């Protein structure tokens, strides 16, 4: 079942949804001058003509969150501030990225309490990708499609750039009730979202296995990043599949035990990611860090969990890097180097 709704009607639907859901979509952040997943109230706020700079994960896995509060002899969990459900309007790559995060947080050992309690509130509405953007290689990663959504939307623009009609597919009947009140003037149609089937960029994923892992680890190839990469971690921050975090404690007043423990997104590209208390680092160079990231995204996640590769090919890391290091090129070039190695 589907609808074609004008912007005013769609805003009414969003308004009704907002009573039960916090609705997140890619939205222009004036202050930061970028597109991030933020709460929206109107279809006119949804940015569709470019990729968002950040992935969807921050809608329910915050960059920084309080986990617990310490008193002298007790520890108290942070309570959920808002128990409303979360509806995320996201593209297929981002929905697929969240499945990768689910694997780490829910399947690797026991489930993570903070992730799980937010994740169970999350519902997806698919944002149709009409065409591939400059840095996308989702088709190569098989993440250009998904059926993991409750509704799908195609947002059209009018000639003057304002919000036009919205095409809606209702996949989960639980969402049908929000559309019952639309007037007969709004067309009931049979809409199915299209998926991108071709990107300009084609990723040739490297064939990494236990058999060649050591040889690939030892390749001179990685040293090119020792100087080039400045270890800012921007690539990890915008990645939809990067899940790593640090914890840190803050005390409210010197000499007193009261304080809080936070967890904050971390980054395997930051030089001290592996640094232990004594100052020793397991990985000492940016080349080693790059190798770690490439292996995680293109070998060991898949090997550990028996799933697809971790990278979803959204290309945001390439947009973000201040040193113009392209992860896409890094991996494609690695594939060529491995082929040479094996000849």
């Amino acid at each position, binding site marked *: 079942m589907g609808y074609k709704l004008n912007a005013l009607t769609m805003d009414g639907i969003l308004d009704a949804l907002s009573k039960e859901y916090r609705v997140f979509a890619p939205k222009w952040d004036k202050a930061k001058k970028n597109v991030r997943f933020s709460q929206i109230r109107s279809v006119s706020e949804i940015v569709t003509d470019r990729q968002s700079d950040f992935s969807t994960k921050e809608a329910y896995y915050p960059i920084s969150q309080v986990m617990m509060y310490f008193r002298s002899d007790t520890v108290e969990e942070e309570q959920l501030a808002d128990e409303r459900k979360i509806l995320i309007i996201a593209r297929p790559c981002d929905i697929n990225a969240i499945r990768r995060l689910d694997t*780490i947080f829910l399947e690797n050992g026991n*489930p993570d309490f*903070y992730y799980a*309690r937010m*994740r169970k509130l999350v519902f997806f509405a698919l944002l149709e990708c009409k065409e591939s953007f400059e840095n996308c290689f989702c088709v190569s990663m098989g993440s250009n499609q998904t059926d993991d959504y409750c509704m799908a939307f195609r947002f059209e623009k009018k000639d003057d750039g304002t919000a036009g009609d919205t095409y809606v597919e209702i996949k989960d009947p639980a969402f049908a009730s929000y559309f019952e009140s639309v007037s007969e003037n709004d067309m009931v149609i049979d809409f199915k979202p299209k998926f991108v089937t071709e990107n300009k960029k084609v990723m040739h994923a490297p064939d990494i296995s*236990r058999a060649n892992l050591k040889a690939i680890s030892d390749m001179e190839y990685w040293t090119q990043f020792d100087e080039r990469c400045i270890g800012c971690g921007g690539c990890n921050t915008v990645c939809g599949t990067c899940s790593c975090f640090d914890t840190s404690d803050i005390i409210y007043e010197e000499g007193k035990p009261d304080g809080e423990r936070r*967890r904050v997104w971390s980054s395997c590209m930051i030089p001290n*990611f592996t640094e232990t*208390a004594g100052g020793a680092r397991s990985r000492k160079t940016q080349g080693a860090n790059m190798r770690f990231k490439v292996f995680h995204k293109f070998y060991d996640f898949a090997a550990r969990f028996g799933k697809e590769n971790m990278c979803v090919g959204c290309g945001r890391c390439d947009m973000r890097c201040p040193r113009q290091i392209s992860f896409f090129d890094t991996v494609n070039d690695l594939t060529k180097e491995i082929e040479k190695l094996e000849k």
Partner: protein
Amino acid sequence: MNEQQQFDTMVNIMKPEPHKILSVTHETQAEFTFRVAFDKPTHNGQFCMLSIPKVGEAPISISGKGDGYVEFTIRKVGRLTQGVFDLREGSTLFLRGPYGHWWPVEETFAGEDHHLLIISGGTGLAPVRTTLNYFYNNPDQIASLYLISGFKDVSGALFNEEREKWSKAEKFHTIYTLDASEAPGFETGMVTAHISKVPFDSFGDNYNVAIVGPPPMMHFSALECMKLGVPEDKIWVSFERKMSCAVGKCGHCKINETYVCLEGPVLHYPKARTLFD
């Protein structure tokens, strides 16, 4: 609606519990042992996540255990562990665990005709201390135990009373060594220089080797053992890695497809030697 939304959110695996500090022992100027009230079962070589005041959590090996307590031996290394040294007897320490895979003491090491070689570097003696005491207290479960324990210098030598006690035990053969200096009761030289003194030939096939210390020390000790004919599947090592969660989430301890918090810290060497950072 979808299956993923059914998962259980009842248990917070990141939440520590308060534990009373029963005593604090100054092992050296830089290393203190904290005895903490604790009544969960633990295995030799496991670790806990300790909340270090003003900093956060760090994985610390269980260095001792007894009825109603465990011990942690912590080295004062810069900013990170400083806050813990302000804690006194009666203070509260927040911790969670125990975590990780352990030395296969009862499963593999023990046996009346089994021999065991333990090689430790520096504070690496802490994670094997409960194993040493297990065999000290159960001498019928081992044929012989060789301990090569190295320290940078005599001021860093840990567990002086216990080392003395072990050196006098009937089935124990101990070599205590200082990297480059001399002191009574100590040999001189790296631990690797002493491995050839172990009579592997007399062990037949019934022996195992446990190695723990800084990564290069473990690497070269394992190589030296293998040079002397020790098959790699008789060797176990224990990895020290940065961890922010210890439950497979934070990503810091991962090496290739292995999470040291979940599959380690004690790893069988045939696996450990195939992990590339």
